[in-house]
Structures are given as structure tokens and as C-alpha cells.
């Protein structure tokens, strides 16, 4: 049994053996995560892991000016997802940035939300499209607002 904290909530995952290798880039050591039982898996988990796997295989492309995120950034992205996103959170897009970071992005419920994970820090930016109200800052500063917004998005699913 694995406990993963998501904001003020802790939820449980049943571990299915064997553990899965998430990142398979040959030159990088694999990172292992436990795979939750399907019935209790967060709705975003499968897609986020799939995308992080794809990003692990990304090769620097000078023509597209899009550096491949490092292993450390990919690891942090998965950790932050597990820490921040309640199971009912809508699935985000998972994209690399020109700084070599990983970004979780939602355009939902009238809001644009970006959570950008770097080597050591995580930043948040959000904007209400109708009012134009926006806020941004480090995750430490904005965690409460982010969790509230994610909850609102999750509620909108039903």
C-alpha cells in the first residue's frame, strides 16, 4: 500500500507487482513507480505517465528549439503530480517548455492553468478568461489557490 499526499488529502494506492519502469531512455537509469489498481487510479495517471515516458525519449531538436527535459525534471514532474493532483483532477496536457521544463496545462471551466516544473522549483500561472483575472508565482506561494482551482475543475466534470 502506498500513500501519496495530494494537498491536504492523502489517498491510498494498492500496489500491483511488479513495479513498472516509467522512463525507458537507454542512457538514463530507469525510475520505478508503483502502479495503482485500476479501480482506484487517478483519472490523469495513465496519460501523465504515458506522456512522461514520451518526454523521456525526446531528443534535443535544434530546429524546433525544444530541449529534452532532464531525468531530474521528469522525476520531479511525476512527484509533483502525485503530490498535487487529487484523483478526480481532469487530465492535463503534458508538454515540454523551451527551458527544458515540464508543464501541466489545463484549459477548462473558463480557466487557463499552467503548472511548470523545473529542476528545483515549480511555478503556477492561472487566468480566468472571462474576467482577465490572473495570478502567478511559485507553487509554495500559490498552492492553496491552485488546489482550489483544481477542485473546481474536478467538480465541473460531473
Amino acid at each position, binding site marked *: 500500500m502506498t500513500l501519496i499526499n495530494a494537498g491536504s488529502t492523502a489517498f491510498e494506492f494498492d500496489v500491483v507487482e511488479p513495479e513498472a519502469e516509467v522512463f525507458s531512455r537507454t542512457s538514463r537509469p530507469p525510475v520505478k513507480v508503483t502502479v495503482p489498481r485500476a479501480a482506484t487510479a487517478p483519472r490523469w495517471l495513465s496519460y501523465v505517465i504515458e506522456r512522461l515516458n514520451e518526454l523521456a525519449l525526446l531528443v534535443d531538436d535544434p530546429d524546433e528549439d525544444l530541449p529534452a527535459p532532464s531525468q531530474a525534471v521528469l522525476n520531479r514532474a511525476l512527484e509533483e503530480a502525485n503530490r498535487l493532483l487529487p484523483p478526480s483532477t*481532469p487530465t*492535463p*496536457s503534458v508538454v515540454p517548455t523551451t527551458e527544458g521544463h515540464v508543464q501541466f496545462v489545463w484549459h477548462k471551466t473558463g480557466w487557463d492553468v499552467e503548472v511548470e516544473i523545473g529542476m528545483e522549483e515549480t511555478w503556477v500561472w492561472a*487566468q480566468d478568461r472571462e474576467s482577465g483575472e490572473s495570478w502567478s508565482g511559485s507553487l509554495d506561494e500559490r498552492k492553496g489557490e491552485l488546489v482550489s482551482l483544481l477542485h473546481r475543475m474536478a467538480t465541473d466534470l460531473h
Partner: protein
Amino acid sequence: MDDDNEPRDITSDDALLRRVINRADFLEWHADLERWVPATGAVRFDPDGMSTYVERFLREAGDSAADVGTMGGSKDPEPVFSVTVEQACLLDFAVSQTPDDRTPIGYAHASVERPSGQFTGDFKSARSQLAQSMRLVHGRITLAAPDGA
């Protein structure tokens, strides 16, 4: 044309075309619009601005959005998105024709330049709005929407 690479006037009605690679690295799912929009990596600004092509100039020379989609030797045509000069300027971006003789359609090249002096949050807002203003005008996005988005 002898003057292919001479800058010409761009009007607010002109459509700017940008190729976006058909991969989840370059596209974000917009749940409210129920369509893909260009991601950060596809709406990026180097010191020369964001590279686009003026549709009118292409059309006048007998080219089209299809030529933008096959730039860079893409085996399969990539999706091409369009945004008007007016939409970009309303978000405080500047647009200028910047002919580029390194590509066959470089005569139609235009740069969208990042507003100067903006705070990061304001720039993110402008860039996000610009991306959401962009419409797919050529090619096809073959990605499925993320499950649970």
C-alpha cells in the same frame, strides 16, 4: 519576382500561418473549446520573434498553406494554424515582414515579436490568448484528446 524579398505592407486583415508539429509536445488540449491549440513549444519567441508566413503573399505567388505544412522536409504535412495580424496586435504583439531567403517561401516570412517590458505573467497571458486565437486551417491533428481531460 525580382522584389520577392523586399518588405511589403502587412494589413490588419492579413492571416499569419504557422506550422505546428503534430505531436503532443507541441499541442495542448482545450477542454472548453474541445480542440487542440498550439502549446508553449509551438508559440515560442526567439530574439527574432515567432516565425510565420503571410497567407496573402503566398497566394499571390501561387503558394498556399500546404507549402507551410511541408516546410522543413516533413514527410507528412504538418498542421497549419492561422491568426490574423489584428488578433496579434490586440494582444500587444508587433508584426513585421521579415523576408528570409533560406526557405523557398521565405518571401512571405513575417515575425511576431514579443511585447517588450512585460512581466512574465502578462506575457504568459498574451501568449496563451494568442495560441487560443489560432485556428487550424490546413492539415489534420491525429492525436486523441487525453482521456479524462
